[in-house]
């Protein structure tokens, strides 16, 4: 992770101590990611410390969960877009495929509990989810990769919407029930299988029967110890699993990036024609990357939405989800895995959850009744009433803010926060000149 440390621009003496710290953090991706996470925790603690430890830990849990799942999805997208330049805006569709397949494979065959499934073990379901996402990715990639980037974008968006419309449709649900004996639940969605992490702490997932581990954890940190609620503790255990998956994803993608296959990928990204002329099978490599990326998106969908109790096609898998993941990748700088993780965390915490929390806190401070509509707020000619309306309707403003950030990044920093750390396609560091070599003259 420190192979950029020898870059000449970064060896200049920093101007101050803070600059030195920032400089050091910039040089180490891990340091930067952990530093960002710490800063987020600090702000979260400041926002909620008056409500006690339980709310502090609870908010941190929400932020960490979102940060990690966005990091996961951003890593998968970064493989396709950052490494191979495949502009896939069907992320939401492939995530939906993963989590729905998992649900159908694992759910009980008894139709008394909602849409029936095959009743197979969870690992089979996860593998099946990844497989189905990969197969649909392959079917989409085979013809579509010949297209120009913006056509590919429209095709993948269309595919993602077709997937969503199918999952939404009650006719498709009925058809599946009649032929395979399984269902999607249509517009009302389906419940997800129980999270195995929960069963580590609770026998059969029942709230009042803790296991030995559960007894220990709840006794030390829980209501009888530090006063953190059991649900939050179990969620943190799941977050630990997620963090493990993100690290495994990251290592896998980094190794992939440094393998001969990864170097070819970067070569294709830099100049497809050259890679082609050098005898690389560009189409095959693109298809492989697209399929791997789709499988990883399926897994990200499973780990993200599969842990949320219930999934439904609308609004969870609307195209806007894809754009969130894109914003995460763009913030981090496409082409950098560390950037994708950082972008996921920054997007989920600062851009996605941040404005809501800040807006809610501000609303509590403002002492005015909320006008029922924008027109009424304007008609009062009272800035306080208008502010009350704005903070109460922070959700649309947050999206406006996201849009502004996106445009700003495209204008000023098209390479993202970490985008200046372009990973070289060569196996050796070309910026390091061998010393003591011959001179030209």
């Amino acid at each position: 992770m420190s192979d950029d440390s020898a870059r000449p621009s970064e060896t200049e003496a920093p101007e101050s101590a803070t600059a030195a710290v920032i400089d050091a953090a910039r040089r180490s991706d891990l340091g930067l990611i952990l530093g960002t996470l710490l800063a987020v925790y600090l702000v979260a603690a400041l926002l909620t410390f008056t409500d006690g430890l339980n709310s502090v830990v609870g908010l941190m849990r929400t932020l960490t969960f979102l940060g990690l799942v966005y990091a996961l999805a951003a890593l998968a997208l970064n493989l396709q877009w950052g490494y191979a330049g495949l502009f896939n805006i069907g992320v939401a569709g492939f995530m939906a495929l993963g989590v729905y397949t998992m649900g159908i494979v694992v759910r009980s065959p008894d139709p008394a509990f909602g849409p029936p499934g095959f009743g197979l073990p969870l690992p089979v379901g996860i593998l099946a989810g990844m497989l189905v996402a990969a197969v649909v990715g392959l079917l989409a990639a085979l013809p579509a990769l010949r297209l120009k980037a913006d056509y590919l974008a429209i095709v993948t968006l269309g595919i993602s919407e077709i997937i969503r419309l199918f999952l939404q449709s009650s006719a498709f649900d009925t058809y599946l029930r009649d032929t395979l004996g399984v269902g999607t639940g249509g517009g009302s969605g389906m419940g997800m299988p129980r999270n195995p992490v929960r069963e580590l702490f609770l026998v059969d997932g029942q709230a009042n029967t803790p296991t030995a581990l559960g007894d220990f954890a709840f006794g030390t940190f829980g209501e009888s110890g530090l006063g953190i609620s059991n649900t939050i503790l179990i969620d943190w255990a799941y977050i630990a699993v997620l963090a493990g998956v993100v690290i495994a994803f990251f290592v896998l993608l980094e190794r992939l990036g440094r393998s001969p296959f990864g170097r070819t990928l970067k070569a294709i990204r830099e100049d497809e024609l050259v890679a082609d002329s050098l005898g690389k099978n560009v189409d095959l490599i693109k298809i492989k990357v697209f399929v791997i990326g789709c499988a990883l998106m399926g897994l990200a969908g499973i780990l993200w939405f599969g842990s949320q109790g219930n999934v439904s096609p609308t609004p969870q898998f609307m195209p806007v989800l894809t754009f969130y993941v894109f914003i995460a990748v763009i913030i981090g700088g496409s082409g950098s895995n560390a950037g994708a993780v950082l972008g996921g965390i920054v997007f989920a915490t600062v851009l996605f959850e941040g404005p809501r929390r800040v807006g809610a806190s501000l609303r509590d401070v403002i002492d005015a009744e909320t006008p029922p509509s924008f027109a009424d707020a304007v008609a009062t000619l009272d800035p306080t009433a208008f502010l009350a309306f704005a903070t109460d309707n922070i959700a649309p403003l947050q999206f406006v803010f996201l849009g502004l950030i996106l445009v700003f990044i495209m204008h000023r920093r098209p390479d993202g926060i970490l985008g200046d750390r372009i990973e070289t396609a060569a196996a050796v560091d070309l910026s390091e000149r061998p010393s003591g070599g011959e001179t030209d003259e």
Partner: protein
Amino acid sequence: MGTTESSIVDSARARPGLLLVVLLGGLLLVDLAAKLAGLSLGPLGGSVSVDRLGSNLWNGVIIGLVVGLAGIGLSMTYSILSFANFSHGDLLSTGAFTGWGVAFLIAGFGDIPVRTLLSVRDAGSASAGDIGAHIVSTPIAILVGLLAAFAITAVVALALDRAFYKPMRDRDGISILIASIGAALIVRYVIQFVYGSDRRGVTASVDASNLAFGPLGLSVNAHELTIVVAAAGLMLAMHFMLQRTKLGTAMRAMADNKDLALVTGIPAERVVTATWIIGGGLAGASGYLYVLLRGTIQFDFGWLLLLLIFAAVILGGIGSVYGAIAGGLVIGIVFTTSTIWIPSDFNEAAAFAVMITMLLLRPEGLFGGVSTA
């Protein structure tokens, strides 16, 4: 005769996908004929009344005209500025909300508070019936609303261009595409902030606004007729602008070959400005007409229509205005007639599938190669 046959066989061999599509299309036509005749040939056939087919086609034409009208602007910006504008759908919403605000202001002025009228019933408690906007009872309000939708959306489109796209003129298409996603978010959620998020009725109902056409069994209402007249009028105006004016010639030249157009001294920025004004204005007008057709309005309806508009533009061939209109009609008819074969849950999916098939088999579109601007 022999040569023709072998050339058909050859081209079928070279384009197996095309052959498949032709076969499928033929099968559907045979099936439709069997359905109309009331015959059953194995899995084919069944029964569909002529009336149902007629009303499906008519509804398809109306939706197609609205989508095609919106597609003109998307196609023009796509070819002249070389990027897929993802904020185009939200221009439809802009036109619809601002246009209907003005139409309401004229229709209900004096009886109902101005804030209720301008916010398209977000504020206050007046119902759509109280305001009474309808082409039969308040034709002036509806027409002025249409003009306002055109004008205000043109200004908004131009402002978006100056703020977001102009600084990026020389960048690649994907970067501008991403910026346009940002612009789309901004426009959509400013609309939600100002006009609220709930779906609400807009048009009043007026008795005797249905005009029946006896022989075809069609029932055409006054709003549908308004849409056909307005959309066809705007398309004709567009046609004369492109063919008869200097600006139109310059636009066609820019769309056809930008470098050549620049070399011949066409003022590029002025053409771009005109493109945004016309394309944005037509988008706003079509959003306004779409609300007239549906009778309800919601802050994200334009965004939800965007993929259909893309489908129309791609079908007709990017850069072709006439292609966008034709593509819109095809998409509209696919949208409504597909319900003969598949459940109505999938009619949108069918339209997207047609678009994807077109992109895979003939990315240049139906009118590809014939750049008419």
